[in-house]
């Protein structure tokens, strides 16, 4: 690395790529820079480590998501007895292009931004880049993913000043952009289960019983007094299936088990705020119990019991990986309780009472992102008032 360094320094042939070179160098080697002012020792933890730990926490969801893509596909084409590896490899090749596109577009924009501002490349997109493929439906065309990612990185992050400065969660902005720009591709029968082949794999004809709607999609169009959810070939499913995750949905969101594994890592390492995570679940349970108490066929989702509310859809995934984003969430302890609780409440509220949106978690987190600074402001104001009272008490 040292040999090629001069070419990338100002005046060198490749000075336009200096940020890229710096990024690669600090990626490969811990910087040798030693402190020159302030503390002489520094903790081993840095933002790279923090971000990569979140990526590791997402791996269970990613791997399960790949398997589930294959599972749903083979189920749909009537070959539910295909081998584990066949399903996994199918899911892998189906999801991989989306991951590559997301990283290529997002990191590309970050690299260019860093070079324009002559800054170091920041690590924020490491996490966003893996979140995006996990929350968009598998059948989303790659160009849509690219457009949405570019929109989110530029308008939700770079214009605010880059990693650490954004107001809205970048991955969720990507999802929201897709949802509002291409609504027909984001819900319904054709979005969530990949029925055609992926690079020649998984050839077969779709069985007659096939319906590709997610459980929440089915609820949104449900009529009648009794609620019975089905899998892609019309067999009944329940909360247990939603907990395990072998149901239709966005790749990362279906399995509670995989999500809980990731949550455990985030909590043990202390990266995610347990205050936010717990209060989202509590808020969801509370609101779930409330709507269930007033269950009515008009709003079919209210017929789900509170625990099922947490297991279906993107609720748990949002609680663990989206709400806990420290940059866009509340930063004071009391604020985190309020922020989390309201996300839980709004997610269920939107899901149940707003027929237009089968899933409320995304919008709930984005909404509370907007309110997080206000919540913090109020909490900090209490501290300020206490300080002023101290003066007045003299």
């Amino acid at each position: 690395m040292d040999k090629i360094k001069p070419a990338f320094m100002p005046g060198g042939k490749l000075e336009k790529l200096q940020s890229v070179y710096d990024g690669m160098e600090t990626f490969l080697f811990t910087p040798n820079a030693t402190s020159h002012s302030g503390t002489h020792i520094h903790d081993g933890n840095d933002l790279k480590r923090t971000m990569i730990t979140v990526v590791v926490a997402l791996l269970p969801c990613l791997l399960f998501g790949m398997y589930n893509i294959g599972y749903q596909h083979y189920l749909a084409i009537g070959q539910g007895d295909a081998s584990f590896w066949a399903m996994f490899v199918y899911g892998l090749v189906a999801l991989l292009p989306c991951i590559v596109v997301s990283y290529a577009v997002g990191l590309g924009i970050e690299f260019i931004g860093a070079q324009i501002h002559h800054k170091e490349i920041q690590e924020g997109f490491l996490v966003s880049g893996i979140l995006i493929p996990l929350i968009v439906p598998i059948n989303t065309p790659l160009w849509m993913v690219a457009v949405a990612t570019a929109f989110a990185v530029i308008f939700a992050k770079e214009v605010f000043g880059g990693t650490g400065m954004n107001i809205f969660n970048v991955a969720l902005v990507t999802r929201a952009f897709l949802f509002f720009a291409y609504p027909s591709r984001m819900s319904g029968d054709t979005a969530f289960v990949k029925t055609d082949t992926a690079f020649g794999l998984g050839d077969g004809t779709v069985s007659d019983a096939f319906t590709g709607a997610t459980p929440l999609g089915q609820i949104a169009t449900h009529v009648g007094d009794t609620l019975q959810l089905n899998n892609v070939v019309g067999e009944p499913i329940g909360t247990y299936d939603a907990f395990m995750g072998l149901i239709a949905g966005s790749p990362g969101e279906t399995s509670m088990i995989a999500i809980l594994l990731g949550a455990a890592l985030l909590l043990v390492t202390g990266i995610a705020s347990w205050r936010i995570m717990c209060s989202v679940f509590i808020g969801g349970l509370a609101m779930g119990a409330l709507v269930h108490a007033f269950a009515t066929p008009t709003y079919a989702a209210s017929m789900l019991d509170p625990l099922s509310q947490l297991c279906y859809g993107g609720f748990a995934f949002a609680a663990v990986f989206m709400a806990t984003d420290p940059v866009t969430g509340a930063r004071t302890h009391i604020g985190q309780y309020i922020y989390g609780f309201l996300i839980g409440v709004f997610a269920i509220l939107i899901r149940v009472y707003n027929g237009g949106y089968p899933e409320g978690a995304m919008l709930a987190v984005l909404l509370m992102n907007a309110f997080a600074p206000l919540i913090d402001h109020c909490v900090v104001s209490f501290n300020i008032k206490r300080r002023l009272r101290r003066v007045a008490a003299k």
Partner: protein
Amino acid sequence: MATIRLKKGYDLNLKGRIVDPSIAEAMKSELFAIVPDDFVGLTPRMDVREGDRVMAGEPLYHDKSYEQIQVVSPVSGVVKEVRRGTRRHIDAIIIERDDISDKLRHDTNGDIKEVLLTSGLWAMLRQRPYDIVPSPEVAPRDIFVTCFDSAPLAPKLSVVLGDDKQYLAKGVEVLKTLTDGDVYLGFRPGEEIEVPGAIVNTFKGPHPAGNVGVQLANVKPVNKGEVVWTLDVITLARIGRLFATGVMSHETVVAVTGECIGQPRYVHATMGCQISSLLDRMDASNTRIISGNALTGFRVEPDGFLRAPYRHVTVIPEMSKPDEFMGWASLCPSRFSIYRTFTSWLLGKKEVSMDARIKGGERAIVRTDEYDDMLPMDIYAEFLIKAIITFDIDKMEQLGIYEVAPEDFALAEYACTSKLELQRIVREGLDRLRSEMS
């Protein structure tokens, strides 16, 4: 007496602790220096020129705005050099010791304030707000004395104090005349000394429990418009000794610690002595010599000088693993972090080796709670730092800038994932605020 339990903070268990509390003699130092930057808030006006002879205790310079505040020579000898840096900033005043060893005596029956000012001890006091040498015009609300040092590898102040313990009562008596409020002493539980006239508190908990600002904030915080003086127990004993004997003591005990020291130990020395006189022969390459502790100390060269508060030297490796390959991905438990993102916590709290690398690039603040968890005060540290960076004076005041000193943020600076220079930010914020307010 109250015991105050502090939960926030962290005790870094660095290698190079002193095991044997006996005190050795330092090698003789020929050169001594006073560094004006140690006396924050003073603008030096020189009283001596190169070649002048001074007694120990004679003034070297005084403050521009309060001429009574003097900084004195720690030894008798000849002023060898007034070392200047950029824009004629005085970097150090270097004195070559002679063997006459005469000391300036003070008439302690005179005005107490006058004696403190001319003895040079005034310059060792600090005031909140701003963490500067106090103005002689304002009487403090209270005076806070910390009686222990909780920083990594810090000396036990009872060892540094030694026999001077007997002067504490006299010191408190003197300080009581300068304030209408009280004199508070803060001890570790079990180490407290009852001193007549003082209010004694004990503080349980990790570093920065020994920081006087933390003790102050948890007993009786500073409000806007109030002034509180702070000092450590060593300075308190020096004040007592001055008024008991008429002579200011410049002797001190220095803890020489750190991973690169063969046998960490205490040594007798004089303020401002040359660092090399404190260290045994050692390989100075790839080491960092710090006058003070690893969090708040100053980097010095072997031919540099001991700096305030004149009681601690730490020597750590400069770079123990150059070009570490993908350090951020390390699963090795020897790569220490106070966070559980690395595996070092699995080994429990054993002694760790730490070098001077920053181990990451500067970023925007991302993680929450990092600063708040390291600062046991009723202050939203992160919001305060942001207010200082944007220099929003109203917000800074509201969030408690008057209660803090840079040293209170030293541990947070260590822990900061985004590698921000918090102490510098706070110092610059305080300085700028002071110039705006005056």
